């Protein structure tokens, strides 16, 4: 069975490759619409026309667009994303520093979203047909109407300014020397056995992760509720009742096991959105991740970074979707090829 799943994972990864190629070509084409000249920007303003032309040739900007794309693709495949015009550093290094921070934040946020989503879904299902239903339902629409960055700002006002409980800038308090092993701060602090620093890192992630988690939970709630309602129409629920099982046992052992599948597939899609949602939450919390890097790059028209970060977001989303698809296969034996 494990072999089948691995083979499926491999097959799905191969399908994702052409998508990635098209995505990177699109990215490249869109950014070439830009009316700025990266060569002129990477030189001091006193540079002569001849110097700019030489730089253009050096950067390959004088060649036809498809050729430029192929050169870029070849370099990317070799791990070379070019040099940032603004920071004057290798883009690959900048991404390696910021990507773990964003993955860490998104992962914690997804845990919160899943926990809130499942709890809320069970509650919505529990109150179905009662007097509380319209109110609970309205509540879920209200929650659905608050995007992650509004939650982020609201939490800053509430827990940062009005009742200063939690920090809301950066990843770690100023006094700490950041350990560097994996780039994942929660893991690195544990490797060093620094529980005080672990707590501090967690406190810094709490508000942004909560903002993202709350914003992405209502969709999960609503899907879990409707798939639970679907599952309760199945015959085996009635049979379980006839066998005298308690309602709680029916819900947990029979219904939830099947209703969780569509919920899981939605969570995969949601994680893609959530990963994009980190962008603004990071900016709001000055959290040094991919999002802040991207917004800085956009403000400075730093093309190599924009291209590379855009591609990184896509790679992560494609990987997540592939993994969720495969996980689906592991959990639902009916989908497995025999």
């Amino acid at each position, binding site marked *: 069975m494990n072999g089948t799943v691995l083979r499926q994972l491999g097959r799905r990864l191969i399908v994702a490759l052409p998508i990635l190629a098209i*995505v990177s070509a699109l990215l490249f084409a869109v950014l070439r619409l830009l009316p700025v000249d990266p060569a002129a920007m990477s030189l001091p303003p006193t540079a002569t026309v001849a110097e700019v032309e030489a730089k253009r040739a050096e950067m390959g900007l004088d060649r036809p667009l498809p050729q430029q794309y192929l050169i870029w693709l070849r370099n990317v495949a070799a791990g070379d994303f070019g040099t940032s015009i603004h920071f004057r550093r290798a883009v690959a290094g900048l991404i390696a520093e910021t990507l773990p921070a964003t993955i860490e934040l998104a992962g914690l946020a997804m845990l919160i979203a899943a926990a809130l989503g499942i709890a809320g879904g069970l509650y919505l299902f529990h109150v179905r047909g009662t007097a509380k239903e319209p109110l609970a339902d309205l509540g879920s629409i209200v929650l659905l109407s608050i995007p992650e*960055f*509004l939650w982020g700002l609201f939490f800053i*006002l509430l827990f940062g300014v009005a009742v200063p409980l939690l920090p809301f800038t950066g990843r770690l308090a100023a006094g700490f020397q950041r350990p560097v092993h994996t780039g994942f701060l929660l893991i690195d602090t544990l490797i060093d056995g620094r529980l005080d620093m672990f707590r501090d890192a967690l406190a810094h992630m709490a508000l942004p992760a909560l903002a993202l988690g709350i914003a992405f939970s209502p969709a999960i709630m609503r899907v879990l509720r409707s798939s639970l309602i679907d599952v309760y129409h199945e015959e085996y629920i009635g049979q379980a009742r006839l066998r005298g099982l308690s309602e709680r046992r029916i819900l947990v052992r029979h219904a939830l096991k099947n209703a969780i599948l569509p919920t899981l597939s939605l969570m995969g899609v949601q994680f893609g959105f959530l990963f994009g949602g980190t962008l603004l939450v990071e900016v709001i919390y000055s959290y040094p991740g991919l999002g802040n890097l991207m917004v800085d790059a*956009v403000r400075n028209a730093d093309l190599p970074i924009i291209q590379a970060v855009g591609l990184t977001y896509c790679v992560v989303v494609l990987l997540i979707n592939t993994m969720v698809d495969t996980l689906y296969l592991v959990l639902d034996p009916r989908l497995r090829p025999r």
Partner: protein
Amino acid sequence: MSALPRWLRSGRVVAGLLIVVLVALAAVLAPLVAPNDPQEQHLVATLLPPAWSPGGDAAFPLGTDSLGRCVLSRLIYGARVAMTVAIFAALGAMLLGAVLAHVAGYCGGAVDWTIGRAVDVWMSFPPVILSLILMVGLGVGLGNVILAIVLVDWTRFCRVLRAEVMVTAGRDYVAAARLVGFSHWRIVTREILPATLPLIITLMSLEMGIAVVVEAILSFVGMSVSANQPAWGQMIADARLSIYDTPWNLVFPILAIFVTVLGFNLLGDGLRRTLDVRLSEGR
């Protein structure tokens, strides 16, 4: 026996419509209802609190921002950008997505496959990232914001509608229309479209809310309309810098965005229930 159509009797639809109409009125009548010029800077009166708190000035009911501009007036004028983007971006995304969905669902085969793969490619971009990259390429401006949102969000319509079109196209009455010898154009517009229209309307309403949020995100990072046009996201960005002095300045644009999006979502959810559409959940 009420003369009202069924969808107008839903509390959600009425509440949603009320909010949306109110915001739209504020946008249209902005020059009449705004107490001040939204761009005029009163540098002697920066970061004033709302009029009801100590130190407030009755001339600026909701206070002033870091450049001494009237917050209430900017809020009202900001509704113009929000509503313009909501209407035109949702309309554009709907047209592009619905046309492709009907073509894919009706034709099937290679056409369906191609459009399906295009949706896959688009879906591998987080929407916020793609719209930001498009804005980098297109440059700031109201028209470009609308274009960027259309180019990002057509997939939301295409994905959901394609399935609906396929179900409808398989129905007996559509097969009958084919046998009678109607043209493909007539079948799609006269037989299939009436069945998919309720879903299109519902999705439109939800998309308007999404467009308001995306515009706010883009204007927050300075990649939406130009700086001389007040937008809610800009106001948030400005207020964030003086969060300890005037937290109110942050509260008002947040509320404006929330209420507007809630209006569109209530409208969409109410329409979904009354028009009885099988709408797949999700954002």
